[in-house]
């Protein structure tokens, strides 16, 4: 870990300005991913602006009947909030499927969205990695890529986004509010927030330097039963091989609407819009769920070690949709 200077931000505006003032500055919040990467010198900020104590730690009701989650709300607090548990159970389930109790107590809402990939080649500075060092190549493409993306990847990068929380938020159509160094704010739909790798995998979100996440807004809960299903190699404390967040609204034995997002398959939470379209108006049947899963993975491409993710994601989606449609 290279030397850095440290300051504690007094306000959101001041924090944004402090980071914007130096190209080598970074925000630090929970620190659970940033310090991990700094110890390995994958991240090498020269200045840290501590935003963990900013008063962005509240969960508030919104006029539209949703919740506005402060960027500094800890993952455990978000998961435990009674409003989230009753109205957005899928989000609680996703949060609780992620990391460990200790990490959830520290990790912030904004940090979770901004966490970087767990690709082992990204984590080893001796290995080629376009995300870590532009133009150096992608060691995962022909390497050990069991954990890697089957959707939206590029020749430059096949890493996945590791968040569970973000997958549920994607299914819930969350909006991300940011504040810029000048004090301007903007709202970004979560689907537009993360970028696919294309030729520039080191650029992971649409945020500008110094632009800080202030809150995540959850629209009023959509109708239907919510289910988050994570598939992993251990019973707990492991990253997703695939995960599915599903909300299925039924009417009698027909599906009115469905929202589906997948994790562990792409560089961003992957909204399965084709599958949603397939389901809308269909009979709530095994066949419909199977067709939806096929549609969701229609464009999937394996890279050898992760080929199994395609059938796994389909099977997981099929039974998760069935669970969500059950007594919805």
């Amino acid at each position: 870990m290279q030397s850095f200077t440290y300051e504690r931000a007094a306000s959101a505006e001041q924090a944004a300005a402090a980071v914007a003032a130096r190209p080598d500055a970074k925000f630090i919040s929970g620190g659970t991913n940033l310090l991990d990467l700094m110890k390995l010198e994958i991240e090498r900020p020269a200045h840290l602006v501590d935003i963990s104590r900013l008063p962005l730690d509240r969960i508030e009701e919104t006029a539209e009947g949703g919740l506005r989650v402060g960027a500094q709300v800890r993952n455990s607090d978000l998961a435990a909030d009674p409003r989230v548990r009753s109205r957005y159970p899928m989000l609680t389930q996703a949060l609780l499927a992620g990391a460990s109790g200790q990490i959830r107590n520290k990790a912030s809402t904004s940090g979770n969205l901004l966490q970087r990939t767990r690709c082992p080649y990204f984590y080893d500075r001796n290995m080629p990695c376009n995300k870590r060092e532009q133009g150096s190549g992608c060691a995962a493409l022909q390497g050990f890529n069991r954990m890697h993306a089957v959707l939206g990847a590029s020749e430059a990068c096949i890493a996945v986004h590791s968040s569970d929380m973000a997958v549920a938020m994607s299914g819930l159509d969350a909006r991300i509010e940011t504040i810029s160094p000048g004090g301007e704010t903007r709202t970004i739909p979560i689907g537009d927030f993360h970028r696919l790798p294309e030729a520039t995998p080191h650029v992971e979100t649409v945020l500008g330097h110094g632009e800080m996440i202030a809150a995540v807004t959850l629209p009023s809960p959509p109708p239907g039963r919510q289910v988050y299903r994570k598939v992993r190699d251990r019973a707990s404390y492991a990253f997703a091989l695939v995960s599915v967040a599903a909300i299925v609204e039924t009417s009698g034995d027909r599906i009115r609407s469905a929202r589906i997002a997948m994790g562990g398959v792409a560089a961003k939470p992957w909204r399965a819009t084709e599958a949603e379209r397939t389901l809308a108006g269909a009979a709530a049947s095994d066949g419909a769920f199977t067709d939806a899963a096929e549609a969701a993975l229609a464009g999937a491409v394996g890279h050898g070690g992760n080929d199994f993710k395609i059938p796994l994601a389909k099977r997981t989606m099929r039974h998760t949709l069935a669970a969500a449609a059950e007594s919805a």
Partner: protein
Amino acid sequence: MTETKTSENRPSEPRNGVIGRPIDRIDGPLKVTGDATYAYENALDGTAYGYILGAAVAKGRIAEIDTAEAERAPAVLLVMTHRNAPAQPDFGPAVTPTVPEVFTRARPALNSERVRYYDEPVALVVAETFEAARAAAGLIKVRYDEAPGVYDLPGHKADAYAPKRTNAGFETDSVVGDFESAFAAAPVKIDATYRTPFEHHNPMEPHATLAAWSGNELTIHTSAQTLANFRAGVASTLRIPPERVRIVSPFIGGGFGSKLIAHADTILAALAAQFLQRPVKIALTRQQMFANAGHRAEMIQQVRLGADTDGRLTGIAHDVWSATSSFEEYCEQTAVFARSLYAAPDRVTRHRLVPLDINRGEWMRSPGEAPGMLAFECAMDELAERLGLDPIELRIRNEPAQDPERGVPFSTRNLVACMEEGARRFGWVRREPTPGRTREGRKLIGYGMAAAIRPNYIGAATARVAIDRDGRVTARLDMTDIGTGTYTILTQIAAESLGVPISSVKVELGDSRFPRTAGSGGSWGAASAGSALHNACNALKQRILEAAQSSEASPLRGANATEASFADSEVRVGQQSAGLADLIRRIAPAGFEAEGSVAPGATTESYKAYSQHSYGAHFAEVAVDCDTGEIRMRRMLAVMGAGRILNAKTARSQIIGGMTWGIGAALMEQTVLDPRYGHFVNHDLAEYHVPINGDVPEMEVVFLEEHDDKANPLGAKGLGELGVCGAGAAVANAIYNATGVRVREFPITLDKVLPALPVIAI
């Protein structure tokens, strides 16, 4: 959920002895309060912090190393590379060393520009703080001339060679009769090839050393399983007499075989401390441990079993191809257990090695049996199915009357009893013999079992025991407690032998100034150190009795010592008795001291005359998600016949730990060696999966009553590794029973069962 039967009292032991009782760990309070001090935690004034930089290539040479920026960095005291490191002996040849040489050979660090494996140390930075040392290591610029290396076992199987012997000194091959003819003629056959991956020990405490010199004397605070090995290795690397090296290791945060020899942290701390003339501490990072602190090598195992239609084995062949290091051979004794486990007239076992450009493998918990039984006990399951026999019945039909290859009787062997008792307790009759038929909701349920066998070793050991005028007993030996419970069982042995309460006994371990033992490894610790202490206590009692009979001041003067006993803090001779402390105060105010020893098992007549092993039977129930293929444990049972149990509580803990290692091997543990770069890709605890709490189900452990009087005076045998042996195969067999999918490439991750799982209607 544990029923523990311990041995009955023997005539030679006092009644109501404390040996066997499930007393709490003596060192428990220290460990739960944070007061137990591990290697890196020792504090000496002026200690500097070291940080190792590892090689970025797996083979080649350092073309240029620029340390200028690191040397100028704040708080940096020293940057050591091959250009300025003190001279050390050459590493020496790669060929099979004899067993002692493995432990005593010099293991130089930073002594060459040559890079032999990925992440091999190329520089050490020592600074005033850990943060400064780590940062400066990142400022060193290294350019390598990379050479092509070999990192692929299957691709180089044709290059395999036969080593001179396996680990622990076993013959490389064994041949009895004519296997090929027997196999060709067998009406029922299994010919199955299994693959087991690289695995890493990953003790929770990283390898760490604090080295301090005082004149010519070097003190090493480290995390070592066997102090004598560390001492010898450090001394030969530094080219100083072993007497000038003191190793201190009272608490060890797990070893599992990865702390039997000194690693780079120890050697470099010693060298840097010598140069700087101040204490230096170094820990390997978790990531560095993967390349620098041993592993279990990847293997390919072919198991061939021939049987008659009644299920009697006519031929057994176990062939093993293992990766090894190109610069230091290590041949795990993977097929050796197969020489003793089942009867068959014609048999062959063979070990072959394929050199790769990686660091050497090291002894990982249950070397031999862990990977070997994973394969072999699955093959037995496959054979049972082909024969239409229950897997337990198949094993019973092949129970040998004596060791099938050595031709000597077993000291004790309760394998059949373990399997039968286990079957009864586990509800084995409920197992559906046809796989894939038992479903609960969307889970496929399966039962599996496997046998366990592990050889009994005794290492040379000496213990010293003293008793003072207050009746307080102190035992000292350079034995270690790596979590096995050594402090506790040795306390029990001394307390029972001398007839004093546990609270009167203090056991001091982990200092090379104490009498030498074989340390902790190979499951020999309890039997070796325990027997030495047992003998030392007998010698102490003899000394006390002699003085009690002859001393003018003794109330027992002239008593007939042949009927003497020590119990309840008293010495009883015939009808006479005296309080132990009072007696010592009268006859020897300075107290008494005595030593006792045991000879290495392999040299004893008993070892030559008997085949000595511990046995057991593992049972497992798994649930496999029919949609995702996720495999989760439901329960496990182990029934063990392992000689006399010295502490029922710590013994059980040893076994459940081993069973969990079986879960790890069966379901998740695998280090991936990248064949392009020669590095272990998943070198941290996020990507190398060891079982976590949620993976481990309810476990039951049963010890059968046993006392192996051929093994040692205590009648005890090793437990630390028995729990692993066969446990993974029981899990694998349960997965087969649940799914009908036989995965022969470990670990059995969901991607390997998923393609064969039928899609079940919702």
